């Protein structure tokens, strides 16, 4: 819905992007992001070194500087519903170059955590969880690989949870402790039927 401050229509439209409405701000969001990320987005002076260092920026509309600004202004819905949130490769180039000693990557990770609490999360993340719940591995073994391992003189199953499946129980306990498997199953089913 187009919100107005009572200016002529053309001007309203032109300024739409630059407006900040007080009721969209959640100071708690700023605080929670700072707590989870253990970094200090409120120190940001918007120099843009982060966006300039970002491998995702030249090929998408993802702007890490914008997310840090949103964290500072407490724009919760705008941050968490933006699909660009998931384009960070977590390469930490922005973190290494930030002149204000902020870790923008960790700001993104905190926002992703908060989005996940609202079930906003891409399915591929949850499928990794499901794979780990069953086998202990995010990228499990397969027959081609078993044959290759045998030829190399290795055990077809590596000495991980593949070779010692009794350890999978511990992993399942930890994931169930947080209720993550049930959540993953539910969300994947909702999205993919």
């Amino acid at each position, binding site marked *: 819905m187009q919100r107005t401050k009572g200016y002529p229509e053309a001007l309203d439209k032109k300024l739409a992007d630059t407006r900040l409405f007080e009721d969209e701000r959640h100071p708690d969001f700023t605080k929670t992001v700072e707590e989870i990320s253990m970094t200090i987005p409120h120190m940001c002076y918007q120099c843009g070194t982060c966006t300039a260092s970002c*491998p995702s920026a030249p*090929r998408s509309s993802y702007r890490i500087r914008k997310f840090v600004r949103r964290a500072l202004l407490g724009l919760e819905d705008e941050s968490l519903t933006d699909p660009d949130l998931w384009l960070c490769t*977590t390469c930490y*180039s922005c973190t*290494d170059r930030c002149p204000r000693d902020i870790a923008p990557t960790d700001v993104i990770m905190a926002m992703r955590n908060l989005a*996940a609490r609202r079930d906003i999360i891409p399915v591929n993340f949850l499928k*990794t969880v499901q794979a780990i719940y069953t086998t*202990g591995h995010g990228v499990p073994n397969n027959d081609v690989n078993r044959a290759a391992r045998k030829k190399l003189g290795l055990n077809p199953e590596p000495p*991980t949870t593949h070779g010692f499946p009794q350890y999978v129980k511990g992993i399942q306990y930890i994931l169930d402790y947080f209720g993550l498997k049930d959540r993953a199953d539910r969300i994947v089913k909702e999205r993919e039927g």
Partner: protein
Amino acid sequence: MHEYAFFLGCIAPNRYPGAESASYKTSEKLGIKLLDLEGGSCCPAPGAFGSIDLNIWYAMAARNLVLAEQMKKDIALICNGCYKSIWEVNHKLKKHKELREGVNEVLKGVDMEFKGTIDVWHLAELFYDPKICGLQKIRDSVTVPLEGTRIAVHYGCHLMKPKKERHFGSTEHPYWIEEMVAALGAEPVEYRNKMLCCGAGGGVRGYDLVHSIDITNEKMINLKEVKADALTEVCPFCQLQFDRGQIEIEEKFGVKYGLPVLHYCELLGLAQGMSPQELALDLHAVSCEPFLEKVL
């Protein structure tokens, strides 16, 4: 002989077993013994798990750490992604009491306790460390020098970045892996924007493949410019992204590069006289033949 618990992770044992096999054999010749870490799991993937809930990521990584604590051995590993999970969680739990207590509350249910008694190392940093191995020892172990080849290095992100938390110094222009490549008799080549990410991390490979391989493509363009014979890295996930990524780039963008991608342990194995069959190089999506012809 220095002994370490060898944390395998997922992609090395399940996709590039040659890298795993090479790690055992090459490090043995350099005075490092890698012991099986029974029951190790996914590290778990820092992009996927860290994004969902950092607390679950801490608990899952702590389980792997406790397995090594029970063995009373430091962990050695060969993957940057694993390094991020295992090294960083170990570091954070040692430092922050409240995090440690939270994790131990969960681990109580599986009769485990994180005590913080071990350290975590990347095998590459152990190779480079003169106290453990060092360049001279690598040079001495070479029987088939990789002379006449030009090899580029991809460092990957999670080994050295963020630099504030790590101990490798500046991440703008590191040169230590190049030194290790030179120790094998090859010529290390540098290329534009060397520290650019491979594009796979943070769950992006699964979320938006085209976006992810577009980053890889940028790296490939820069690598083509310097006419490298091969690319080496210290992370099987980067290896997967460059190796299988080249096939995906060909499918989606219609560009063919044909650049062999080898884990540093595989390269070291070749230089120490292991055959391509012993390294399972035929499992690579991009053929290593043109490179092998120059070497063997």
